[in-house]
Every structure is written in C-alpha cells, then in structure tokens.
C-alpha cells in the first residue's frame, strides 16, 4: 500500500518493541491518537489512493451523502452523542477524554480490546477469527478482525450500523462501510495510525486518514464510568431551540437496511 505520510522503516530494527509471547508487538496501555474530533477530513492523507493536502482534503461523498452532510447543522438532534450512542469505528478511538485515561488497549495473543471513556465505547477485536459475522448483524462498533503484516496490526471492520457519525460536525457513512485500520510501530510508544474508508453508498472513492498515536507512561490511569443514559439532559440544548420537549429518534440513513431493526 502506498504510504505518503512516512515510510515505516521496520521499527523493530531500530527500537526494542514490547512484544507478546508470540513475538507480535504489544499495544497494551493508555494511548492518545491525535485525530480531529470535530472534522475528520482534517486528517485525510489520501483519496482514491492518491496523496492529498490542504484544500484537497475532502471526503468524496456521493450526492445523497453530500446532501446529508450539508444538512447536518440543521439536524443536530440526530447527533449520536446526544443519544448516548457508542461513537463507532474508528472515531471512538480519539473522542473526548475527561479523566486521566482516554483510550485503553488490552492486548492478548487472541484479542485486542479498545476501551474509551467517552460513552464507555468498547470494541473487542479477534486476532484469530477469519470470517466476519453474517452481514445483516450490524453493530455500533462493527465486527473487527485483526491480522498481522509484519509488525503492523491490520484490522478490517465490517457490520457497522449507520447510526454513528465520524465526528461532531456530522460526517457520515452508511451501513456498507468497511474500515481498514493499520497500526504501525515507529517506536515502542509511538505508532502511526491509518484508517481507510470504503463505502459504495456514501463515497465515490476510498479515502484514508492518518494520525500519530502515542502511548502514555501511566499504565494505571483508569477509565471512569460514563453514565450517559442515566443522566442525559443534553437534549434540552436542542429541543429548546426547536420549541419541543422531546427529541425524535434519528432518521434512517439512506441505503440503510430498512428491515433491520438494529440499524
């Protein structure tokens, strides 16, 4: 795969990496991924496989999804955070961190578990399973399968529902989204993170974001409970604007499987 941000010279040649007993790099610990919460397009490095910069960092929406994106400002009552939804793949990895811990990774030879304080988002990724679950089982956090390409962890996530946004400004995806993430070590506590988005309903071409990923020193930083449903009065900010006392459920994204009640 073309890599424009950096050429990941085999980090293991230069740095001693923490490794699992099976020899794979060990990503256990507390991490920060420096990607934009507010607008994911700021982190775009490639569109359709070609390097882009500056004004070229634009999500290649289909007309229907370009319209959805344009309408986001007037549809903030659909914002997933307002509804206490888990943030979805991949943006749950870098959402707001209120206590000392943001993203915590538990890593074993069989699993990578991503835990984030915001919304208590949680993604359990198998490193041994090879088949995705049936396509009509859709999840907020998708079905991620991990594999190794040398020292690079590659995770392909399918089975995403269409109810999550990619950021707070309202960039969207459909339930046909496939996200391929790459975690490449450039030092023991510094990885390069990439995610490539393919979604024939929402995008006319693939697009890729990149961000540096840093491991913190405190392995005991603890994620606190995020009680969103239990204490949610955030909807008032929105309902007062439109004169209502209750918020509507989000409308279904175009292209979503209407027969699937969990989407």
């Amino acid at each position, binding site marked *: 795969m073309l890599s424009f941000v950096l050429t990941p010279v085999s980090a293991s040649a230069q740095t001693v990496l923490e490794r699992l007993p099976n020899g794979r790099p060990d990503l256990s610990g507390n991490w920060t991924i420096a990607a934009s919460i507010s607008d994911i397009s700021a982190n775009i490095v490639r569109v359709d496989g070609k390097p882009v910069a500056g004004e070229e960092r634009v999500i290649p929406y289909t007309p229907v999804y370009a319209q959805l994106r344009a309408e986001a400002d007037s549809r903030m009552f659909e914002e997933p955070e307002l509804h206490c939804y888990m943030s979805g793949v991949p943006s749950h990895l870098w959402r707001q961190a209120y206590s000392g811990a943001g993203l915590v990774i538990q890593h074993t030879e069989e699993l990578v*578990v991503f835990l984030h304080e915001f919304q208590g988002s949680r993604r359990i990724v198998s490193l041994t399973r090879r088949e995705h679950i049936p396509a009509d089982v859709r999840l907020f956090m998708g079905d991620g399968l991990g594999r190794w390409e040398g020292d690079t962890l590659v995770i392909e996530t399918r089975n995403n529902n269409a109810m999550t946004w990619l950021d707070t400004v309202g960039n969207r995806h459909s339930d046909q989204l496939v996200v391929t993430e790459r975690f490449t070590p450039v030092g023991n506590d510094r990885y390069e993170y990439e995610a490539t988005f393919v979604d024939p309903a929402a995008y006319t071409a693939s697009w890729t974001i990149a961000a540096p990923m840093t491991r913190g020193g405190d392995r*005991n930083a*603890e994620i606190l409970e995020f009680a969103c*449903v239990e204490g949610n009065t955030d909807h008032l900010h929105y309902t007062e604007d439109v004169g209502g006392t209750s918020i509507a459920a989000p409308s279904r994204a175009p292209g979503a499987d209407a027969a699937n*009640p*969990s989407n």
Partner: protein
Amino acid sequence: MSIRAAALAFVVAVTPVLAESAAAQEFTPARNRHGQPDFEGIWQVLDPAPHFNIEPHGASYGVPAGLGIVKDPADGRIPYTAAGLARRETNRANRAADPFTRCYKPGVPHLMYLPFPLQIVQSENFLTIMSEYMHNTRFIFFNRSDHFGEGELDLWNGDSVGRFDGDSLVTDVFNFHPDIWLDRSGNHAGGPTLTVEERFTLIDADTIQYRATLTDAEDFARPWTIETYLHRHKDPAKQILEYECHAYAENALGPPVLPDVP
C-alpha cells in the same frame, strides 16, 4: 472514624464466615503469563431467575420461579433494616422506576447475574469484565491501594479495588449510586454507605463461583451474601455482541428513553 472505615469495621465484627466448599479448595486453576489465576473467557449465569428476584419466589407472568441466591442469611431473605424494607416496598409498588426499564447500568452485583454474557480479559495490572448489556465494562485494578475518596462518587457499577487471595480474585467495591436495584422486583442497595466485597473462585476449569457480601448499616441489619455460578461459554464462535437498549427503544418506540427532566 470515616463512614468507610466504620463500614469496614462493621464487616469485620459481624460477617459470618461461609463454609468454603470442598470443590473450591481442591481445584487449582491455570495461571496466565502474569502469574495470575486465569479467569479469561466468556461467562454467564445459567439461571435467569435472580435477575427478576434474588429472593425465593414463585413464578408470575414473564417471571420464572427461583429459589434465590441469598445464601446468608440461611432463610434466603435480605436482612433489611426497617428503612431498607420500606424502600423495597416502595420500589415494588412502582416498578416503572426500575432503572433497568430505562436501560440504566444495572449496578454491582446485579451486572454479574444478568441474562447476558460477559467477557473477562486480563492484563498485567487489571482485568476487565465486559457485559453484553449496554456495553457495561468494569475495570478491576490489582495494584490500586484504595478507593476514590470517601464515597462522593455515585457510580452505578461502583469503583473496584481488586487483589488475589490465593487462587481467588477478591474485590472491594465502593462509591455507589443510591438507586441501584438488585433485581427487577425492587430489592435495592447503593449510596455512600454501601460496600460490596466480591470473591471469584474457579471451582473447575469452566465454572466460577461468585460471591458478593453487601454491607450497609443504613439498609441492612447485618452483612449478607449472595452466591451464584458463572459458566463458561464453550461454543468457539461465541462472542460478545451488543445490546444497546436505549438505541433500540428509540427505534422501536419512537421517542427516546430519557430520564425525567428536572
């Protein structure tokens, strides 16, 4: 003496020691690469009845009968104080207030006997217990020396301080929200005076004996203990999926499930 120290003194003074079963003493569990007894796997209680009522109860519409999981006192009844019992009866008369109907976190120990699977993953300094229900996740650190403050935090699932006692995992859980229901029938616990001590013991390779002792001088006349069993899921394809209760309620019912607006 702080509230918490008083609560602990109360435990020491009054808690009767449950007889350890022979099986729990005989089995030697496998240890992981960190030298810890290995609790990893996907687990679930077999019996849905305690989720409805942890005391002995007959069947009713939608509710299977159960003999209860309260093992001490021996009569299987929660030793409420008068105030604690009054609140239980208030809850029972107003089941619409059940936090579970609003998709809230179930609290500890209720989380452990929900009719949903949970997965345990162990790291060097902590383990996580991850329930399929509303992505509830508990962190249990082994090297944290004490709780956060003196009960000021109102956490639904509490804050857990863990340690290994031989082959058992023992936790001390504190900082609880005041409105936890222990089941769907209004039995309750919670607030800054509640302490839950849990003990996880592998009695064979595929069964965790789970005990929790609840101590709270305001709600309970003495500490009391539940005991149930978590069984390992053996289907290699089994995995934790999602039950995002509040989201499905929005889709199925239209208006979202939200708490009363003050």
